[in-house]
């Protein structure tokens, strides 16, 4: 993986604009530019839709990007497109848009277009702020809990990707280190109790 290339800021002509809420102008890069960047910077990459759902007028996709062995997972979403009569035009198209959004967000976790996610252009984007660990150190998962989660997953035969998927589904977080002590504790208890199933 060529990190320098992956995190290189996009050229002005690759940046698009659209109207956002409250009259804000939002800057984004389109999916083609992100794919082009992944092709340039990674030897191999793969994107999977782990889960999708349509609810409350929105298509939601949990996506998993594996780039040169590095795995990132996160959600993407797209409002359902309706015609003048209020009928849904194409759920498939909205799911595709949500998947593209998930891929872009996964890629941002590797540093692609990071400048649009709270970097130098933070005043011009509505993108979701980057996920952070709980602010109080005493609330954060402990190193021992981290080890216990790893050991439990190994014992139960739960792959790392599946663990991340469970975490994302329960907490909306994409990183183990961002769990709270309480979340980690519940997860360890739950996984330990599921031993017979695997």
């Amino acid at each position, binding site marked *: 993986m060529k990190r320098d290339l992956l995190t290189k800021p996009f050229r002005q002509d690759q940046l698009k604009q659209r109207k956002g809420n409250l009259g804000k102008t939002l800057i984004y890069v389109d999916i083609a530019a992100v794919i082009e960047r992944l092709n340039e910077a990674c030897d191999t990459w793969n994107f999977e839709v782990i889960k999708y759902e349509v609810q409350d007028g929105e298509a939601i996709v949990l996506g998993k990007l594996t780039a040169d062995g590095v795995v990132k997972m996160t959600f993407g979403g797209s409002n359902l497109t309706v015609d003048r009569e209020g009928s849904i035009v194409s759920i498939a198209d909205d799911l595709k848009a949500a998947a593209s959004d998930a891929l872009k967000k996964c890629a941002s976790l590797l540093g692609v277009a990071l400048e649009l996610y709270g970097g130098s252009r933070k005043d011009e984007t509505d993108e979701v702020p980057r996920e952070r*660990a709980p602010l109080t*150190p005493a609330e954060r998962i402990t190193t021992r809990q*981290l*080890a216990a989660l790893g050991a439990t997953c190994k014992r139960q035969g739960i792959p790392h990707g599946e663990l991340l998927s469970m975490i994302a589904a329960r907490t909306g977080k994409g990183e183990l280190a961002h769990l709270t002590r309480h979340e980690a504790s519940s997860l360890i208890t739950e996984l330990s109790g599921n031993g017979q199933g695997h």
Partner: protein
Amino acid sequence: MKTLEQLRAEPHLSVHSIRTWVDCPRKWKLKYVDRIKPAFRPVALSLGTSLHRAVGHVLLEQAAGRTVKREHAIELMRATLHAEIHSDGAPVLLEDDETETDVHEKAKAMLNSVLDVLPRPDRVIGVELPFRLELRDESGRALALPLVGAIDAVTVEARRTVYTELKSSKRRWSEDQLAFDMQLTAYGMALRAAGFTEPVPRLLAVTKAKVPAVQMESPHRGQQDERDLVATAASMLRGIKAGVDHPVKNWACRTCAVGAAAGACQ
């Protein structure tokens, strides 16, 4: 003399990178080739950083002919530790049932224990002294990359040059750790290459505890240790060139911060 940052800007080996490769070639690749940022930092690392900063400050002030008040050194360590724990980077993770106050108390106790035994040198040659060392095999040929690093402290005590490596660890250092630690070997070689005759190694290790144990040892280092270090570095370079990057799976994987970030090792 170049700064450590300048030396690190060129391709190089470090004792840490050699140790990482020996422990787990996959971790080495994730860290040094793929440049994976760690998913978290164990609080132990922050404790070590802040302890180094405070002790280094005490020695530098001594070098300038001043004496640092104990409470000032403790305050410096507290401030450094606080900044470490609350920095924007990878989250610092504490141990079970540990609060930030506990960590600060531990840090204070560790610093006090170190300062209680730290000898007052006649002269301080340097703190965090950077070096660049050509590693030469038995035929005298230099390895492809030099060894770069920084020595915690180099002082003169009773007309002898003493180099000190300050360590904070969970447990006391075992006899084997003392005998085979590569850092002390490398620093001795670097100092001799820089013209210091018979530098004396010193390991000052403090346990991370509210009642810390301090070890001050001067383990012997000889030619065989130096040959072993060069042979290890040469073997590592051959391995990297051949594409060796297998994971070494063991208990350490569960708290491996780069493995966790890459998500490829668990």
